[in-house]
């Protein structure tokens, strides 16, 4: 469910007037499946783009940790139409010669073997401003007419952070999210290679954070413990994807599911839903904070005061004055103030009674007149 949710969010893209949805994928040495998850989303989103099912019409891949030919081979193996790739993918090659060493030596990189339509080399990745310009200009290559959006994928934020300061990397990502030509953006990082503040900064800028965590946690985290070798072995092929997404209204949704690395990439092996997480989050106290199933059912059957309007009875809206027809419909109050409940139908009803006749209806005077506004 979490994987599907992310794929849908990337496919649907940005709403008008909102920042592009952003996904952080992070992993740890104990569960190093993050790059496989990154390539899963990359290939899945590429399939949507090439089939015209996504808001974005193209993908700009910023390749720091692998060569452009690696990604084209990978997409080809996953069944994507590489022959027509120049229509939907551009690769900014920050891998082959990131610091211009080869350029100084007069050597040309492997990217030159690829068509210039698809890959272009960035010879100085330390210049974040030019990196931004290159990404945008590559994305504009997809624009045929009108307003077309494109997606940006960054395969290693760790490498970016090695070449540039956290503030400039954060500035680049923030600028990309603000850009109204970008439909969605996702990036990958090894969380244990970043300082904590860098991870937090990236997560603040993300609308979704997918964290790959080990299924089996060890207290010392050492692989040298030979007794645990078989258990540790499982962490290289299986893991738990923990997704935290922030909605526009500020609500945070948490999902997780178990993933497995197979021959063809990442597969989902079991799914757990949000509700399970929420139950786990309820503190253990002596009194009940949760409703039982029967209580939930009864609550659903309660007819709220506004819901029984319009069923033939006169509409009653309490306007602060005693209605002339009150006496006609008033049921004799019982001492504890609770009305009769139609037990046969199993439905509840809420009827309001004033405490007594002594209580005067509201007058015309302003109830807030004592406020010093």
């Amino acid at each position, binding site marked *: 469910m979490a994987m599907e949710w992310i794929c849908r969010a990337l496919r649907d893209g940005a709403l008008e007037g909102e920042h592009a949805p952003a996904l952080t994928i992070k992993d740890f040495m104990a569960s190093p499946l993050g790059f496989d998850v990154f390539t899963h989303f990359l290939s899945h989103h590429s399939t949507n783009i090439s089939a015209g099912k996504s808001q974005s019409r193209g993908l700009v891949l910023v390749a720091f940790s692998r*060569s452009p030919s690696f990604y084209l081979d990978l997409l080809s193996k996953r069944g994507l139409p590489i022959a027509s790739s120049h229509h939907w993918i551009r690769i900014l090659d920050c*891998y082959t*010669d990131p610091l211009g060493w080869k350029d100084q*030596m007069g050597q040309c990189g492997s990217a030159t073997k690829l068509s210039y339509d698809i890959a272009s080399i960035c010879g100085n990745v330390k210049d974040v401003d030019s990196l931004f310009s290159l990404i945008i200009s590559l994305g504009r290559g997809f624009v045929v007419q009108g307003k077309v959006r494109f997606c940006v994928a960054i395969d290693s934020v760790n490498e970016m952070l090695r070449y540039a300061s956290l503030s400039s990397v954060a500035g680049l990502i923030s600028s990309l999210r603000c850009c109204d030509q970008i439909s969605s953006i996702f990036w990958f990082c090894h969380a244990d290679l970043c300082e904590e503040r860098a991870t937090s900064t990236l997560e603040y800028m993300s609308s979704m954070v997918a964290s790959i965590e080990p299924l089996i946690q060890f207290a010392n985290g050492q692989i*040298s413990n030979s007794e645990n*070798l078989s258990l540790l072995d499982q962490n290289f092929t299986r893991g738990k994807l923990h997704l935290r997404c922030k909605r526009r209204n500020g609500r945070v949704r948490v999902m997780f599911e178990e993933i497995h690395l197979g*021959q063809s990439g990442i597969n989902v092996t079991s799914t757990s839903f949000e509700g399970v997480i929420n139950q786990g989050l309820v503190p253990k106290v002596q009194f009940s904070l949760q409703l039982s199933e029967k209580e939930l059912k009864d609550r659903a059957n309660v007819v709220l005061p506004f819901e029984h309007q319009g069923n033939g009875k006169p509409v009653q809206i309490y306007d602060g004055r005693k209605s002339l027809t009150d006496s006609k419909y008033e049921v004799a109050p019982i001492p504890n103030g609770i009305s009769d409940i139609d037990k046969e139908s199993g439905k509840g009803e809420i009827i309001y009674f004033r405490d007594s006749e002594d209580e005067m209806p509201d007058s015309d005077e302003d109830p807030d007149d004592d406020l010093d506004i």
Partner: protein
Amino acid sequence: METRSLLDEALGLQHLTGRVLLLEDCVETSAAFVLHHLLKRSLSQPLHSSNVVVFVAFAQPFSHYDRILRKLGCNLAAHRNDNKFVFFDMLRDFCPDGDNGKGNDGGLVSLYGKILKTISALPQENKNCVTVMIDDVSLMEVSAKGSTNLVLDFLHYCHTLISEFGCSLVMLNHEDIYSGMGRPTLILQMEYLADILIKAEPLATGLASDVHGQLTVVNRSIDDGERSRNKLCNFHFKVKENNVEYFYPGSRT
């Protein structure tokens, strides 16, 4: 023969083409013998007679490796004359007169240029059979005046040789010198870079006369055909004068 193949089985491949292999050791247990084993294997396998090793030595002079490999039955000097073994003596070339000729990059940019030039000059059939070996990365960091970033830049450029020519990269580093450091440490960055990690450690139960230590091999090979097996193995070893015995824990009395 059987014991020797235990390490090769753990590596799970006939040759290391396109892989990054990291050797990690500590003060108590050196992994230099694994480096020597890989060096001999790269040069001696008849199936891969076009293999070329580019050896970047920060730790020992040529004569040291020559003597050890001779005991293992491999003549480095002869391979050097045949241009199958290219030796960069970083101790001699870069360190005699302090900082002379090193510049701000510790000579790593020019070292990369030399490696690239060496590989580019090879005949086409040899280019994808090149193994670049670095002994060791901690001393490379010293040469780069402690600049971890510069070492990582160099390793990144060596990694590009893999995608460009299909080379393999073998590097040795010492795990314990990074203990107690705040993250991110160079050793962790290297572990992420590696496809295969070999750790040499002392026995958890203490010293023993018949067992010199244990090796843990983590094979994160991306080759789908080998993904399911030899993922992670652990076995003991005993270093002898002319060879090394590998055996599973408990198989020796």
